[in-house]
């Protein structure tokens, strides 16, 4: 579907006239910027160093961080959920959960422990949102992880509902170690590359740094206002 555009010419002509020149519609080249400080940040850091930086920064953002290899992943996820008080759990529909050996946890262990698990299913429509709203834990996967700020980046699609990371009371983000980059710069470059290659951008790309918080009351930090109250990052050593 193509959207509509109203009132554009008058508006843009006014801008051009204030700028004292004819209107510019022909593509202009992206300038060569004189300053590029962003590439210097953690320029030559290894994945291990980036992990250290991430771990350190998690202290400042009220976020628990755990690291594990693939063998230990299911047990770690199980324990964190138990720690958060159990289910209901809601997850994206994502093949990687199975690849990482989480199938038996999700499909057998939790049900046997009476922990309700719901996997996002777009064919069920709004039911997904009700499930997410009632969930105690939401589990998502970071596509790009920013060491400097302790940020996970989530791309939405039909199987990866946005609300899985907002509505549940607590949040678990799985972070493949290979997704670690120095900072937001590398994420922005990658987002552009994806767009230039595919002509498409996910309708919602979320940079999430720890649980939700607010300092609106006397500048006292309160963790957990509208989004999750607690957050845990689980870094998976996939390298």
């Amino acid at each position: 579907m193509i959207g509509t555009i109203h009132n554009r010419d008058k508006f843009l002509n006014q801008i051009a006239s204030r700028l004292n020149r004819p209107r510019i519609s022909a593509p202009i080249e992206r300038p060569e910027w004189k300053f590029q400080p962003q590439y210097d940040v953690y320029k030559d850091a290894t994945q291990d160093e980036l992990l250290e930086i991430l771990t350190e920064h998690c202290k400042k953002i009220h976020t628990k961080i755990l690291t594990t290899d693939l063998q230990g992943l299911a047990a770690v996820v199980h324990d964190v959920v138990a720690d958060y008080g159990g289910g209901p759990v809601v997850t994206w529909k994502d093949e990687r959960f199975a690849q990482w050996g989480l199938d038996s946890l999700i499909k057998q262990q939790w049900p046997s422990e009476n922990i309700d698990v719901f996997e996002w299913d777009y064919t069920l429509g709004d039911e997904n949102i009700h499930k997410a709203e009632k969930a105690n834990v939401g589990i998502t996967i970071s596509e790009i992880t920013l060491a400097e700020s302790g940020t996970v980046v989530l791309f939405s699609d039909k199987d990866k509902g946005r609300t899985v990371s907002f509505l549940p009371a607590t949040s678990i983000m799985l972070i493949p170690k290979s997704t670690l980059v120095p900072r937001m710069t590398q994420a922005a470059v990658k987002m552009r590359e994806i767009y230039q290659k595919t002509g498409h951008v996910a309708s919602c790309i979320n940079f999430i740094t720890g649980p939700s918080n607010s300092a609106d009351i006397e500048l006292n930090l309160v963790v957990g206002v509208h989004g999750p109250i607690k957050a845990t990052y689980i870094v998976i050593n996939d390298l």
Partner: protein
Amino acid sequence: MSMKIGTEQFKERVDSGIHDDFMRGAVAGAQDGMSLKRKAVTTDEMSNWEDWRNHGEEIRQHVLEYLDYYLEQLSENVAKRGGHVFFAQTKEEANEYIRSVVQKKNAKKIVKSKSMVTEEISLNAMLQEEGCEVVETDLGEYILQLDDHDPPSHIVVPALHKNKEQIREVFEKKLAYTKTSKPEELAYQARVTLREKFLEADLGITGCNFAVAETGSFSLVTNEGNADLVTALPKTQITVMGMERIVPTFEEMEILVSLLTRNAVGQKLTSYITVLTGPREELDVDGPEEFHLVIVDNGRSTILGGEFQSVLQCIRCGACINVCPVYRHIGGHSYGSIYPGPIGAVLTPLLGGYDEYKELPYASTLCGACTEVCPVKIPLHNLLHKHREVIVEKEGKAPVSEKLLMKAFGLGAASPTLYKIGSKIAPAALNPFTSGDKISKGPGPLKAWTDIRDFPAPNKERFRDWFKHREKGDKRP
């Protein structure tokens, strides 16, 4: 609410500000705390911080220079993704368009995430006229809204002037709240009440931190996550942006987001930075089915191409407010505008006119603290000075007595002879007011000075006389 807040004159507003002890304590504490946090993630952490500012500045300058091109590109790309774009030259046009969407969708329940431009165009008033329930979901704005629309006093922390006890009282009165004034408990109450509002809303309205021309995307920056719920749950979404809030690509967006979060709240990034493109995709379950982008001029284009253009570089981080020594003592409401502090004193007269706001450019010592911290290098104190020049020389709005005084001063200062005579007779002229080596009750313009402080009596022997005698070889102490 429009840009203007309150009905009092500047002097009265300043007077109530200065006598509001809680507000002043809160503002001073906030400024001191915020300055430390800001320094920690800017100049302390990054030895090349000046390069970051330079980069921010070059991006913003470039965008303003090619604003028509980038807005055209943005609108094309939004439409390609199925979004609708409305260009509104005036606030009336913006409100009319939004009204038509509300009516078409028969929307009754609206949730909003914080947006200065919607305040500027008085959007909420129009929506209430339409019989809609409008809920502000940023915690600070929600508190103000509950308190019978108390105006914001800061662009980042709108309820900075309120203490938790006042907030508890508001919650008690409006939400039948029974718990204590602990911020955690107050925030939890807001979470519970607002969660319901999010789930039942049929329309979500947001502002826009930075639109991205290349992809037709836009970003929202929050700590609470309220913007995410506003854009994920209602079926229809309207985003309102000031026309200058745009960047070429994700790569420039990234820089400005980094500058914004570090300067606004002293964080490397805030908890939520959400980049949205168009309405939901075909099989998506959450996100809006329909998306409208309203791009607002409302006086901005008249600033383009003139000597105040650089004010449009602003990314609304509030760093200038957090260091301003004048804001520190008078608070946000004294400015009579939703945009307070140095940025407000520059921007408000441009958007709202000198008749209403001619005092604001003088509410500054030109100390330059604002200019020093601005992450996109707006020469704020120079622009304040520029306003004074315009008020005096083009608008002719300066008081007559001041004009005469300045004229006399200009003559005296420019003429060595007049200056010499004036400075020579000063001690005698001021003699009746002098006791010992000071003046405690000065005449004329000196009175405003001596109401507060002593003024030194002019030396009987001017420095120049001493120097002359000394050159001649006179032995004098």
